[in-house]
């Protein structure tokens, strides 16, 4: 039986009392050791100093998460100087959006919920500094894929709310297992995939607290344990959410999103439960899913998912569980001895689809954002940092992160000063055909916008007037290149004011631009570039804009014209300055796993205000 480690203090006083003599005894032992001259081997002393140094380094950043008023509910850890801290979702569930957080310095800070990952049992909160701009102590994120069974680890937190002054309790033990799978605890939430199993003692109140390696790097967030006859205290088996899983969601969490995990869009199961060696086989492909459009079929053997080989149910659930929905991941299947690799856009996990793969409609678990009590006037500053919105843990932080990305991108050019029509001239390649290319984007007044695109033939579209989906996705085979170009212009020149449907930060996603020299990539995974995503919606057209996390350059975007088909993918490269603004001079257009066109631009003419 597995349970989360949320505090249940009432029954735990006895246990707390039991823990005290242990601490006293060890204290005694150390003091005695001082008195007795003993020769201690250098490695022993080195290990001790390493351990002490690691604890000293990280303990100021360990958080005691409290209700407003200071009653302890769990633990957390600060991961940035601005005071962003990781904890468990089940810790902030009882606190609601506003809580308090005690640090080892004995000070209780106000804190606010930022982003949520209910399925993964993670929440990001932000502590408010007492003095504006004063940095918080924070810890470095480690690499949990490097954690091995038998490694030493340190767990810290506030078990049983022992520390009235918030000084974290430290426990020490070995890693019992890695890549462990622990099924959801009711309604599909709190699923621990690819997690770290520890014997390092964690108890009620440790929830949300950090697990460190011996270098003081954060490798996990402690969250639950296996309990049975011995009661709901440490029974030698605890679990921490691996930090590498959290890293995948971190962009979403910073952006205040109430994020969701993913499914493949196909039911995958073991070929035979009784087979001597286990194999994973696609049992059914969900109609209308990206997996279906990518050509995955019933009976395909699943070999590799996102770079990891998959041969058992637990392995599959582990690797599937570490990704946010809508991420594209490379998937390799085998069919009749042929291997086939493709990029699949993952579907959401919290069921919003009408039909489940088994064909039986299942009740959709729809968790609500932690409402809690209406923000109390404890600290008006903290209350100002919380804006509720459906689909978000905290909309305030989405706006903040979105504007950060857009402001950073402005370094490459501010296009709001060039709202007039844009003309680009150059060459095109569509399949075997090549020739001169020209496109013109004119915004016009109201709905008068017009796109002219000349490839081998002339195309014309009034993007805001045309309602026929068949015309909206012209040129045929592009998935809606003209619509895409129009939205690009609108996005760059109008910004937020141009998108009444949605204008938000979409978290972080991998983006897979094909090599600019047109060569065949070694593997799809090798193309990956991590991007911040801005999502827009105008009319019924939705776009996702991919900004490089390295230099905030717009690497490309996807335009979804019709809901049930693939988007038109546009990849930008060869950026050069035009009127002091950086514009891509090579545009690759892809649709349905194929390149539709390559546009090389010799000259842009941007209309001025």
């Amino acid at each position, binding site marked *: 039986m597995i349970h989360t480690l949320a505090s249940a203090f009432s029954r735990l006083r006895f246990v707390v009392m039991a823990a005290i003599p242990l601490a006293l005894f060890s204290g005694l032992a150390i003091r005695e050791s001082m008195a007795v001259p003993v020769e201690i081997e250098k490695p022993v002393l080195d290990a001790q100093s390493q351990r002490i140094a690691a604890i000293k380094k990280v303990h100021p950043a360990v958080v005691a998460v409290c209700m407003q008023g200071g009653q302890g509910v769990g633990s957390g850890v600060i991961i940035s100087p601005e005071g962003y801290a990781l904890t468990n979702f089940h810790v902030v569930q009882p606190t609601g959006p506003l809580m308090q957080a005690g640090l080892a310095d004995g000070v209780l800070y106000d804190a606010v919920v930022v982003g949520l990952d209910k399925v993964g049992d993670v929440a990001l909160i932000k502590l408010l500094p007492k003095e504006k701009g004063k940095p918080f102590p924070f810890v470095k994120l480690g690499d949990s894929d490097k954690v091995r069974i038998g490694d030493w680890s340190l767990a810290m937190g506030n078990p049983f709310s022992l520390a009235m002054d918030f000084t974290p309790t430290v426990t020490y033990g*070995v890693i019992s297992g890695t890549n462990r799978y622990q099924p959801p605890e009711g309604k599909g939430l709190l699923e621990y995939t690819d997690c770290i199993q520890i014997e390092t003692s964690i108890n009620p109140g440790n929830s949300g607290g950090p697990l460190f390696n011996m270098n003081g790097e954060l490798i996990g967030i402690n969250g639950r344990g296996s309990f049975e006859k011995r009661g709901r205290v440490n029974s030698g088996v605890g679990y921490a959410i691996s930090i590498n899983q959290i890293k995948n969601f971190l962009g979403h969490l910073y952006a205040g999103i109430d994020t969701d995990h993913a499914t493949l869009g196909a039911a995958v199961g073991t070929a035979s439960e009784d087979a001597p060696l286990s194999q994973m086989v696609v049992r059914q492909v969900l109609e209308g899913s990206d997996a279906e459009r990518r050509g995955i079929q019933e009976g395909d053997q699943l070999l590799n998912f996102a770079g990891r080989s998959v041969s058992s149910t637990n392995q599959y659930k582990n690797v599937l569980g570490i990704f946010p929905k809508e991420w594209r991941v490379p998937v390799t299947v085998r069919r009749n001895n042929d291997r086939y690799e493709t990029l699949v856009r993952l579907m959401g996990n919290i069921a919003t689809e009408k039909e489940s793969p088994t064909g039986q409609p299942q009740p959709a678990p729809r968790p609500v954002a932690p409402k809690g009590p209406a923000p109390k006037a404890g600290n008006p500053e903290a209350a100002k940092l919380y804006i509720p919105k459906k689909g978000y843990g905290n909309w305030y932080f989405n706006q903040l992160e979105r504007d950060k990305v857009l402001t950073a991108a402005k370094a490459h050019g501010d296009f709001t000063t060039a709202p007039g029509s844009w003309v680009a001239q150059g060459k095109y390649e569509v399949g075997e055909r090549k020739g001169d290319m020209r496109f013109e984007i004119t915004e016009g007044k109201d709905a008068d916008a017009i796109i002219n695109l000349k490839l081998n033939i002339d195309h014309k579209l009034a993007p805001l007037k045309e309602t026929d989906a068949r015309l909206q996705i012209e040129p045929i085979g592009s998935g809606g290149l003209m619509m895409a170009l129009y939205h690009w212009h609108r996005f760059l020149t109008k910004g937020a004011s141009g998108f009444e449907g949605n204008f938000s930060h979409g978290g972080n996603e991998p983006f897979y631009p094909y090599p600019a020299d047109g060569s065949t990539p070694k593997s799809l995974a090798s193309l990956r570039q991590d991007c911040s995503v801005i999502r827009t919606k105008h009319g019924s057209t939705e776009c996702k804009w991919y900004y490089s996390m390295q230099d905030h350059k717009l690497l490309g975007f996807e335009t979804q014209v019709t809901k049930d088909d693939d988007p038109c993918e546009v990849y930008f490269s060869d950026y050069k300055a035009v009127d002091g603004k950086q514009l891509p001079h090579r545009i690759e257009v892809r649709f349905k796993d194929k390149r539709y066109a390559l546009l090389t631009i010799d000259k842009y003419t941007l209309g001025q205000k």
Partner: protein
Amino acid sequence: MITRPGFALLAAVCVAISTPVIAAAADPFNELAEKTNRKMVKLFGAGGFSRLNNYGTGIIISPDGHVLTVASQLLDTSELVVHLYDGQRLRAQVLAIEPELDAAIVKIRVDGKKIEEPTGLDLEYFDVNELAKRPHAEPGDWVLALTNTFEIALRDEPLSLQRGVVMAYTKLAGRRGVFDFPYTGDVYVVDAITNNPGAAGGALIDRKGNLLGVIGREIKNSLSDTWMNYAIPLSSKVDLKIKETVKDKNGKDIEEEKTVTITMPDFVTKGMKGEYRAVKRDNRTTGIGGYHGIIFVPNVLERTPAYVEDVVPDSPAAKAGFRPDDLVSFVDGDPIASINTLIDWMKKNTRPGQVIRVEVRRGEALQTLELTLGSYPSQPTAPEPAPMPKTP
């Protein structure tokens, strides 16, 4: 005065800590865990209901696929399955069971091969006979446990690793439910919480990777009523007193008491060959009996009269109308002299679902109650709080 224990503790800590240090580069725990994991199996068998797990752990003790594990109900099936470290799923069959050692030998089966034929598996294994000759580990020594605790690992997933210190090497006084545990020989008592569901049959190893003992089933210490963390050592032996019928010099049958020694190495050697014959003994291991729900007065005397102190609400006894202060006098016509007599009678003669007639003395009158026995409740009783510490 306190210096000594302090010193001893420090010494233990030193030994302990030297591992991670040297480890910084080599990380021996990881290699040890990996190496040991290859000599272990996940075991799946009977159970899966009312707190009886259908999963456990086993230790490979021959290249041919003999497995040492505990003598649990898990083995009570013809559908025994093992998962090897590499993810292979194979059938297995019980060769020998010795409740006095709480040990069993199981053999992995390969399709198309008879049980007595070599499997051709060529597995990595622990040589129990060699290892049993080693001196046992001492209190203060560091140990590691590898088990499939809570069935966390399936197929090729590695077993769970725990680390601890031997706290004592001592005689076991344990009980399982209301029964005394059959094994009463030496055990390693460790400070890590090793004996969880599914962990039984796991390996307790030293820091060099030598197998020290077999992690035992979940039992409570019958003295302190706390859950135990222990392993049965490979060198374990028990002396069993049995009664044998022999002819005396006049040719008459008489019963003679005889002591038989059972050792783990002997059990393993003979068990692997299929030659182990369990010693015939008194029918000690009767069933658990049916559940009545009567709480008797404290059983402090050899012959405490079977007075009812209380009745568990909604229990069979409550339904049958038992009341505090009733004295149980006869059950199905047999006189009940004491609480112990009743407990023995229940174990020997009853099972869940059975209806028994109980005559109780209530006040001055005898009353007959019909009691339909149930199964022992599957819900664990609430964990008992730790005793209050004496602060110095």
